[in-house]
């Protein structure tokens, strides 16, 4: 049995997305910038895809810029807002401690350039509040960037309220919606969003393609100079097949968003209930305000990489925030941000479900995780110390 439960990392492409791409490889392969009919056919498709994407987000077609993915969109949005702020003498940016590295590392670069960055603390439940944002806004704040939903623990932030605070105070608001797009409703107008990043491969579209929504009137700073593609805002010949795949995938996801969310979150809750039976484990992030497919636990006394390898042997593809899996010395910055001690954070497990996940798979995963955790604990000196009382449990 092979169970893919790492959908927050990437998803399998949908048949709809694959089929939407194929004609643009062999038949309509023109360059949309070309004047001849082969190129113009591609240009029409590009315009149509942009319109359809815009309809999914509640914006205008010209407010969509195609990018190479979520990271580029995040870099583009934040860098642009910083340059705009700089011109007005505003060099303060607000974000959160548990953003994706595409955001955090961009902010770090700006900090070196003299920007002041405020990273809001994240509450133990994995949420930040609009009040925190409001309290942190200063006269020199040029941008607030808060993710829609966290990629590790799946918690959904109060984007609409944060957007309202920003709008009231006249500060640009960007949200990294890479995990949310296609899974949660997005309406950039109703949610007061000025800029939004998304990535196709998180909603069954192709890899290497994403989009930035930037509200009309926001002057963007080019990251890539060259031709006049994307209204002169992002040079390089458009990846038409990928764009067609992305538009088809987003449309499909948005058309079924409520039924998918209901089905997947029922499976998520079944998985959470099953894994909660394992003693001395704890769910990371709020149980309700989380992405339909996200389950993330820490288990005491074990380390995440060995857990992943043994689960893989049992056919379960998962991920972890342990240091050993991240290639760094520290465990996940997200788990540390919500206050998990290092010892516990090393024993984290993320299982992310999709529309294709079945109840049988969920039940199999509950058994597999329980068995592997028990086995690893049986050979763990930390677990022995915990059970012998030489070390104190952090969880119940």
């Amino acid at each position: 049995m092979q169970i893919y439960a790492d959908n927050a990392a990437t998803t399998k492409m949908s048949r709809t997305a694959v089929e939407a791409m194929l004609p643009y490889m062999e038949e309509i392969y023109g360059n949309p910038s070309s004047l001849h009919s082969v190129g113009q056919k591609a240009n029409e498709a590009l315009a149509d895809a942009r319109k359809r994407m815009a309809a999914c987000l509640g914006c205008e077609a010209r407010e969509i810029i195609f990018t190479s993915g979520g990271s580029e969109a995040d870099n583009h949005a934040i860098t642009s807002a910083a340059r705009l702020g700089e011109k007005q003498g505003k060099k303060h940016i607000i974000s959160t401690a548990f953003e994706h590295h595409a955001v955090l590392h961009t902010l770090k670069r700006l900090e070196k350039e003299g920007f002041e960055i405020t990273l809001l603390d994240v509450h133990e439940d994995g949420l930040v509040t609009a009040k925190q944002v409001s309290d942190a806004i200063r006269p020199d704040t040029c941008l607030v960037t808060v993710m829609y939903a966290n990629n590790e623990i799946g918690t959904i932030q109060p984007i609409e309220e944060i957007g309202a605070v920003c709008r009231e105070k006249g500060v640009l608001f960007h949200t990294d919606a890479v995990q949310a797009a296609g899974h949660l409703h997005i309406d950039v107008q109703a949610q007061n969003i000025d800029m939004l990043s998304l990535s196709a491969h998180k909603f069954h579209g192709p890899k290497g393609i994403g989009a930035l929504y930037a509200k009309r009137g926001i002057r963007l700073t080019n990251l890539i100079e060259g031709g006049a593609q994307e209204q002169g805002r992002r040079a390089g010949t458009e990846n038409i097949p990928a764009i067609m795949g992305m538009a088809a995938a987003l449309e499909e996801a948005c058309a079924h968003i409520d039924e998918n969310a209901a089905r997947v979150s029922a499976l998520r809750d079944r998985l959470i209930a099953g894994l909660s039976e394992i003693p001395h484990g704890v769910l990371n992030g709020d149980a309700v305000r989380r992405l339909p497919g996200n389950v993330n636990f820490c288990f005491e006394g074990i380390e995440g990489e060995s857990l992943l390898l043994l689960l893989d042997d049992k056919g379960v593809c998962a991920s972890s925030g342990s240091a050993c899996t991240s290639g760094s010395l520290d465990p996940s910055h997200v788990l540390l941000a919500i206050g998990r001690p290092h010892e516990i954070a090393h024993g984290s497990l993320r299982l992310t479900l999709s529309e294709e996940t079945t109840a049988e798979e969920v039940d199999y995963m509950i058994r597999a995780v329980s068995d592997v955790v028990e086995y690893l604990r049986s050979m763990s000196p930390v677990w022995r110390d915990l059970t012998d009382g030489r070390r104190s449990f952090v969880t119940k």
Partner: protein
Amino acid sequence: MALYSDKVMDHFRNPRNVGVIEDADGVGEVGNAKCGDIMKIYLKIDNDVISDVKFETFGCGSAIASSSMATELIKGKPVSEAMELTNKAVAEALDGLPAHKLHCSVLAEQAIKAALKDYYDKNGIAYDESQFPDCASCGHCDV
């Protein structure tokens, strides 16, 4: 290419000498939970020969495999020979470890030596302190 060699995966999936020796002659524990690796080695020593060895490890795949391999390399060997175990020998016996996992083999060497030191201490056997580098000498983590 897979992350680990077949040898590492074999020792990870089927670790040799897992467990505890209740009346051990030497016990050594190195690493810390904050870093994500702890190894504990138990030695039974008869007539200066390691007659039995067991380990418990909290850590990643290569930490478990390194512990398993290190115990295999010293089992049945004279104490003097076990003292000469190097992290390099552990890594080589596993057909190599990824660069960022080499500290696991260092930890295994140190765990064995910590257990031997405990044996020396318990039996009043004199030794040269410099033979026993402390945990910090590995430089992997700054805890």
